[in-house]
């Protein structure tokens, strides 16, 4: 079935582009350590809010040259009370490919020094400028993407088993169990989801390690989303629980939990796949919204949401537009997921064939 779905996705023009874009993004995130010129925590305080490096291929004599860049110089303009950035043309820094740069551990395991693109140790190559701490935005985009683009999936992997089991038990047992369980799920759904998200996030104590915080955010995202999913599963279980194959399983003495897990829940597979692909983007958006407010992933860790936090200030969005790049990436990723989700739904849900 998966193969069939993939074939259909490839046939659809939009879905194919979306698949390629997502493939590229995940590829870049996987090799982030290598692609990024700097490590996640590299910061040069003298280079705060530096604009993107200019790369030249024609030198001052008008001749073609190896690509090179100049560092920026920050000067304070006392008259206008502004910091002025100008190119320090005294020294050329050649852009080097596959050269030695800052040491890192590839995937956290293999110590390496080579970077896809870098420059000499005194030069600074900031492809998308720097943030307030003089950290390279381009590198942080890659490392932040690792968090932003996986957190949604992880949340789904926590949420779906819970929702499936909860909905399955509620639907199969019926009666009082069902009504109590459903009232509880409805109550969770009655709290506007974003409100629930922020109160849950505000409970997290400060002073956690970044991994702990990341895991807890995953759990919070799952806690907010499971109820709606459980309700739909319950409805589906209700519609199959009196069919012959369930009665057959019952008559040969299967336990109730066994029937739910082995016979009833597999009937919901295609719905689960559709629901999963359609809800990945909303979790990406939730995480970035939460981090944007400062309640999600915290500095010094990067996520696309918390990188956008700096875009909350007028001066930043007006004179430092490169700080907005994470927003465009979120947009592209969500758009791609939506396009794929739409196509998968069309493939797996024949009733929607009219579209």
């Amino acid at each position, binding site marked *: 079935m998966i193969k069939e779905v993939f074939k259909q996705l490839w046939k659809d023009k939009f879905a194919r582009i979306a698949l390629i874009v997502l493939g590229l993004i995940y590829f870049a995130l996987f090799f982030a350590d290598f692609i990024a010129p700097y490590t996640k925590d590299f910061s040069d305080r003298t280079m705060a809010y530096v604009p993107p490096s200019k790369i030249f291929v024609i030198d001052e004599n008008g001749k073609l040259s190896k690509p090179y860049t100049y560092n920026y110089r920050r000067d304070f303009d006392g008259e206008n009370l502004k910091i002025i950035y100008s190119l320090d043309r005294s020294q050329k820094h050649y852009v080097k490919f596959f050269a030695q740069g800052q040491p890192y551990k590839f995937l956290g395991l293999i110590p390496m020094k080579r970077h896809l693109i870098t420059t000499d140790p005194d030069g600074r190559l900031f492809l998308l400028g720097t943030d307030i701490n003089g950290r390279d935005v381009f590198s942080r985009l890659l490392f932040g993407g690792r968090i932003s683009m996986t957190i949604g999936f992880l949340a789904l992997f926590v949420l779906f088993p819970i929702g499936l089991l909860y909905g399955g038990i509620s639907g199969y047992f019926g009666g009082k169990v069902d009504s109590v369980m459903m009232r509880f799920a409805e*109550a969770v759904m009655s*709290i506007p989801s*974003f409100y629930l998200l922020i109160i849950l996030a505000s409970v997290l104590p400060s002073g956690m390690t970044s991994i702990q915080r990341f895991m807890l955010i995953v759990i919070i995202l799952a806690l907010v989303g499971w109820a709606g999913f459980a309700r739909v599963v319950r409805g589906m279980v209700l519609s199959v629980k009196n069919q012959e194959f369930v009665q057959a399983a019952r008559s040969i003495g299967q336990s109730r939990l066994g029937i739910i897990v082995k016979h009833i829940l597999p009937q919901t597979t295609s719905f689960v796949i559709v629901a999963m692909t359609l809800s990945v983007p909303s979790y990406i958006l939730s995480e970035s919204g939460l981090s*944007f407010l400062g309640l999600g992933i915290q500095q010094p860790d990067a996520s696309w949401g918390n990188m956008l936090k700096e875009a909350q200030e007028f001066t930043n969005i007006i004179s430092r537009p490169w700080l907005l790049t994470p927003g465009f990436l979120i947009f592209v990723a*969500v758009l791609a997921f939506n396009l794929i989700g739409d196509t998968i739904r069309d493939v797996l849900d024949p009733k929607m064939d*009219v579209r």
Partner: protein
Amino acid sequence: MQLLIYILKRILQSIPLLIIVSLISFFIIRLSPVDPLAELKLNPSVSKETLQKETERLGLDKPIIVQYGKWAKSFLKGDLGITSNGEKVSTKLKERIPNTLLLAVVVIFMTWLVGVPLGVLAALNRKSPLDRILTVLTSIGMAIPSFFFAVLLLLFAVKTGWFPVGGLTSSNFAEMPFGAKLLDLAHHLVLPVTVLFTISLAGLQRQMRANLLDVLDSDYVKFAKAKGLSDFKVVYKHALRNAINPMITLLGFEFAGLLSGAALTEYVFQYPGLGRLILEAVLRSDINLVMASLMMGSIMLIVGNLIADILLIITDPRIRVKGGAA
């Protein structure tokens, strides 16, 4: 009469729901490691007696279940307590809730006004270039993160100076004549409404398109066509009315989505709504305020769903015949 009984039943049903909501929220908030009275203690204008009274009222020295009981009791009496700044929670809510409702109602009204016709247009011209363009546009609308869009619009407003960059009213609002007041409000509403409108329009248009396509595919529409009715009559007299009904259920969801989506938009635009209030309250760990605004948010959501269901009963005779026992 039947409708009245149904409404009453639904209201009764939502009471246990609200109790569970309050329990869930209360326990989550009390899990927080922050001292809920920390800010009150630091505020020099708050007297010792108030502090003592508030500690007692919340029962902070007692076990959590007793605390909840105390909170519930005063909530039922209509006493929502004071915020950590010493203001009354109820005044704060009275000030903020209408603003959020205003935003939500304007957005819902506009999305329906635009989304339904666009959905019909796309369904009637299925697979035409127009339909394709609309699909692409709605995909884009659904993918923009609301806060990012809001930030971009803010940038636009600052650069052009065409729109005010925050709040709901100008500073001299109180002295304006009535007409100017309305204009001023509208002027401030343009940007937040644009953000929420763009995001919810996409879903509505798609749903409308899918519904109408479903209905156009049904036997009775085919029959009407076979009978020789004009296309115009078939679509507008028969198909459309049936395609709109499921949309009304969506109204409740849309309202819920707006309450959530509005929080971030309100935050970016400094719009004085419930979403921003709860956010500020959460950041300050202001229990009374968080609890009260959570409850209000939930009540608004439940009422929104109720209104949608009632509308559905009024418009859909099939449900009425079943005795409204939805």
